[in-house]
């Protein structure tokens, strides 16, 4: 049993671009749900628009990446408004249902054949990130030890992504500590009370939705950059749920919760997958079980993560960083 390999794999995933992408998505969700109380089950929709908006400008229209990114984020603003304006006046469950449906409908539209000319349909779009990697000042080669190593370009994506994670965390923290954030947190507690104090709660919810959505869009942009392309299969509904898992793991309504949650999520997911693979390879498992697990290590890992999350909810429902007392005061 080679724990170096397992740990190396786990650490590579926990610090890698995927973790940073999910950290960004979870930071957005944290603003939505942790602070504003908005149940957004369509965060992947924002990620998809950030990614596709960027890719379409570059690959389809031959524009600059530096125009593509703001275009993608602009689409996220539009999506937030389109989702929020009709539903945020209604009871909160209408909003929740709309988000999950809208994100999936959007994905199906993007991969549909009439959209192929623009989005690449089922084939996606490629070769969009050249001008991003042109800025890479790191030398070629691999960085790290053993399985815990990254290529120069991966490391470049990671540096940019983790800087964005820090900036977005700081942005949300500053917002939430301002009087604006006080109104937003008050709405989470009781919208009618806040209305009775003369605040236009729908406007605040909409603003929170837009900001958290744009942060989700940034996650999508990073995803498009690190793959230098986009494909609709990367934006299935489970992406949203993984981001939720990361957020809940780390703890709602905390600054570090979504970030640490995303790191842990990918660390554990990759670690468990790698562990199962090692077990089979070393012949420590009965043949029947090894055959059963073969090729399904990733799926099994996700299942175990789910079980672990349920256990966490039972033992420590506030997540790793959440305050238990706050949870009991929840309305």
């Amino acid at each position, binding site marked *: 049993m080679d724990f170096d390999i397992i740990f190396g794999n786990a650490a590579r995933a926990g610090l890698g671009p995927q973790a940073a992408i999910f950290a960004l998505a979870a930071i957005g969700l944290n603003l939505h749900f942790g602070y504003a109380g908005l149940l957004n089950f369509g965060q992947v929709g924002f990620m998809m628009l950030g990614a596709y908006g960027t890719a379409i400008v570059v690959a389809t229209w031959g524009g600059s990446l530096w125009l593509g990114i703001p275009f993608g984020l602009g689409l996220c603003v539009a999506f937030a408004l389109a989702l929020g304006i009709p539903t945020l006046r209604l009871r909160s469950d209408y909003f929740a249902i709309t988000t999950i449906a809208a994100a999936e409908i959007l994905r199906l539209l993007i991969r549909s054949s009439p959209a192929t000319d623009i989005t690449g349909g089922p084939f996606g779009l490629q070769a969009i990130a050249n001008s991003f990697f042109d800025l890479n000042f790191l030398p070629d080669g691999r960085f790290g030890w053993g399985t815990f190593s990254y290529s120069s370009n991966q490391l470049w994506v990671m540096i940019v992504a983790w800087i964005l994670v820090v900036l977005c965390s700081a*942005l949300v923290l*500053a*917002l939430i500590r*301002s*009087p*604006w*954030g*006080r*109104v937003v*947190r*008050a709405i*989470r*507690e*009781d919208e*009618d*009370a*806040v*209305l*009775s*104090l*003369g*605040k*236009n*709660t729908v406007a605040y919810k909409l*603003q929170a939705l837009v900001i958290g959505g744009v942060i989700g869009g940034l996650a999508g942009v990073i995803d498009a950059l690190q793959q230098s392309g986009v494909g609709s299969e990367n934006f299935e509904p489970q992406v949203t749920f993984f981001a939720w898992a990361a957020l809940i793991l780390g703890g709602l*309504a905390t600054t570090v919760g979504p970030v640490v949650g995303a790191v842990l999520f990918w660390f554990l997911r990759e670690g468990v997958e790698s562990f199962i693979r090692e077990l089979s390879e070393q012949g420590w498992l009965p043949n029947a079980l090894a055959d059963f697990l073969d090729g399904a290590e990733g799926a099994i890992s996700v299942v175990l993560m789910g079980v672990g999350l349920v256990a966490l909810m039972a033992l420590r429902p506030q997540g790793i960083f959440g305050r238990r*007392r*706050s949870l*009991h*005061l*929840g*309305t």
Partner: protein
Amino acid sequence: MSDATTIRPELTQAALEAAPPGRLKDDPILITFGMLKTFGGIRAVDIDHLEIERGTITAIIGPNGAGKTTLFNLLTGFDQPDRGSWRLDGRLLGGLPPHRIARLGMVRTFQLTKSLSRLTVLENMAVAAQTQRGERLERALLRWLWQPEEARLRERAQALLERFGLAHMAGDQAGTLSGGQRKLLEMARALMADPTLVMLDEPTAGVNPALTESLLEHIRELNAEGVTIVFVEHNMDVVMDISDWVVVMAAGRILTEGPPQEVVANEEVIDAYLGRPRDAADWEEAEDA
């Protein structure tokens, strides 16, 4: 009566002349006319004409289901009437969303206390202050723009908390307060919004006698400072104690209104609300018919 019709444009001269004694106020801050709200078949609120005199304490009494809370919801924009109009200081409020009505100076509390549990007591207060610069998203990050205002606001909040005996809990999460303290906080919070008219829905419900006493004292003080107060109350001792005017509701309608001493002596009120042997009530109804 030309003056009376200018402040009550919805009312015809004939309706004005037919108004029951006491209904027309000298200086009404709130005038309601032809307000109807039905839920399915129930006429939850069906009020032809109601006025609230500026600077007074008005109690609304009536049995459960009389429509008191629904009336509050309608007046403050939390629910829409089937028909009817109402004016605050001459301004028509129909169709305005609740936050706009609150900004015009009519601030309400709720029958079921709505404390912002995971905000501190001080934050509960601060969030109620009106027109804060830092509440605008575009200024939220520009701390220096709102910091001085924030400091003043905290001072004012502290002073109010002091008055309501909650100052020592300013840093605690509101969810940790007792039921009575939450009622006090909700009222203090409403005041933080600088209202001209406060609508309190059962402010003393579930509050222990000692706290009730201090709550009533606050209501009196506030009123002395010129704030008009309308409150729903079931305890007749409280009503007799602090109100200048009593409106009695039953089955969505105004049964009668008047000074407290007059109202408690009213036969209909005794029937509908204060209670009397069932057969006696039946007998009265038979006589009416």
